[in-house]
């Protein structure tokens, strides 16, 4: 019983913390239809900025906020490459991701920064409540933060700007003909997305007690897996439901991973399994059409 309880609470904590990545991926891939691969670089960027600031004595809250800001900047870079230099969205993301690998090393000065002896936001929250740090506390903190961010996104996507952002992903020509700047909405969406991803990186680094330059590898696939699982399980309709489903998907993904690991899956195989999961999910519509002899559009290259 204890094992199950532990598995659930750890999965929930991780699901919520990585949930910001899933929200970010949802905003780019689903809302904006902008397949942004910056994520693998902006996730460790968030960790790196937070870690370096914390070991240099900056308040962990400020450090976390700065990480979010750095993520916004990374997203800004990618979206400017796409909108102003007209570089293909996929390529713009890959370029930024590769550049960020060096940038992250520059920021960190080494490949790994331990944070175990540092005061992090989790310790600050524990101090504030007069408790000691625990999984439960981390979980509650992540839950509160998730609720705040979800509420903000749920509001933002219904505002006048938010509407233009959603419409951009669906029908750019219409948005321009109605007088909204699609470059601007793209820049806004991709930036917000990477801000969320970096926030997640900052929280994860602080909770696990270190930042590693390689901690972002496969993050985009994990985020996509969460979004796909969330959509598959909950079949949401409407913005609020979709946002909740994305976080739910992140939790479900972490739960599957936790169970698989306990059943003896080697952690090194995890990314392979995740990739297979996403491949399967993406291939299902194709296979379904094939069986029904429906018309299938040719594969998209660019």
């Amino acid at each position, binding site marked *: 019983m204890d094992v199950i309880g532990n598995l659930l609470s750890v999965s929930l904590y991780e699901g919520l913390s990585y949930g910001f990545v899933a929200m970010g991926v949802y905003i780019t891939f689903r809302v904006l239809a902008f397949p942004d691969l910056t994520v693998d670089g902006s996730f460790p960027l968030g960790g790196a900025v937070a870690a370096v600031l914390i070991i240099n004595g900056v308040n962990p809250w400020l450090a976390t906020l700065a990480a979010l800001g750095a993520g916004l900047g990374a997203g800004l870079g990618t979206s400017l490459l796409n909108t102003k230099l007209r570089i293909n969205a996929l390529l713009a993301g890959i370029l930024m991701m590769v550049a960020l690998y060096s940038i992250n090393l520059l920021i960190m000065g080494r490949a790994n920064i331990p944070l175990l002896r540092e005061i992090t936001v989790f310790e600050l929250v524990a101090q504030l409540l007069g408790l000691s740090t625990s999984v439960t506390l981390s979980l509650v903190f992540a839950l509160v933060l998730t609720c705040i961010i979800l509420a903000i996104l749920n509001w933002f996507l219904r505002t*006048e700007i938010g509407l233009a952002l959603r419409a951009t992903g669906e029908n750019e020509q219409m*948005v321009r003909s109605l007088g909204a700047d699609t470059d601007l909405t793209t820049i806004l969406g991709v930036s917000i997305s990477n801000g969320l991803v970096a926030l997640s990186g900052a929280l994860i680094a602080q909770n696990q007690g270190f930042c590693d330059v390689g901690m972002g590898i496969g993050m985009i696939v994990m985020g996509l897996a969460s979004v796909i699982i969330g959509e598959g399980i909950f079949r949401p309709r409407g913005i609020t439901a979709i946002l909740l489903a994305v976080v739910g998907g992140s939790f479900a993904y972490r739960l599957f991973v936790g169970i698989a690991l306990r059943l003896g899956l080697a952690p090194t195989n995890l990314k392979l399994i995740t990739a297979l999961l996403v491949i399967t999910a993406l291939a299902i519509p194709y296979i379904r059409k094939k069986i029904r002899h429906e018309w299938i559009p040719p594969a998209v290259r660019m």
Partner: protein
Amino acid sequence: MSENGSLLQLKKINKIFSRGTVDQIIALNNIELTVNAGDFITIIGSNGAGKTTLLNIIAGVYPPERGGKIIINGKDITNLSEHKRARYIGRVFQDPHIGTAAKMTIEENLAMALLRGQRRGLGIATNKQRRELFRSALAPLGLGLEDRLNTPVGTLSGGQRQALALVMATMSKPSLLLLDEHIATLDPRTAQIVLDLSEMIVRREKMTTIMVTHNMEIALRYGNRLIMMHKGRTIVDLNQQQRSNLTVNDLVVAFERASGEQFADDSILLPDK
């Protein structure tokens, strides 16, 4: 509006696609056009005549060649981007899918259109007051869309979507309305309904309008001025008086005289119905 009552002026408008290659096409050839406030112009021409290119140039989808000038309300908008021009120009596209966003609801689509030419802010896009406005804008269509504000647009028929696109193009009362073969993809009955709705809205709002069509009958029946395009030039320009009592056959004769060519496009001659 400028002193002489003209709402839109096109000066020396040229457009060349694939310049310097074997595929080079002169899509627009020295177009000079003055549209007066209140004009309802129908533009007719065969495929490749430059009708849609002309609308794209006016709307700012792409710029004209150097030296060309586009002036609206006395203001030079030649270098203004498409989304900034949208303040002055409403447009309905040939494809209903381009004029509306399928996954968004009717009221969300209308809210997007309502803010044409305005700053988009952080207020919630749809509120009670706006919903009332949307209902009153949709009710005259007689399609019952006013009771389905929360329906995703993707579930509507092509005709309903095009009627919605028409309302979206006109609801914030732009100075100029561009209708780009907007009934071409609809079945004849729906096309007639959308066409009548277009005329009703144009009349009600006294909106200056340019309507591109493939159909000579429609070009003669609607509007107060008829322009015929051929190979990137305007070859016939008839005012209300000149075109009254004109038949499709007279138009064909006018075409042949102006272009010096035999008329050979059946799709223009044959009415849609």
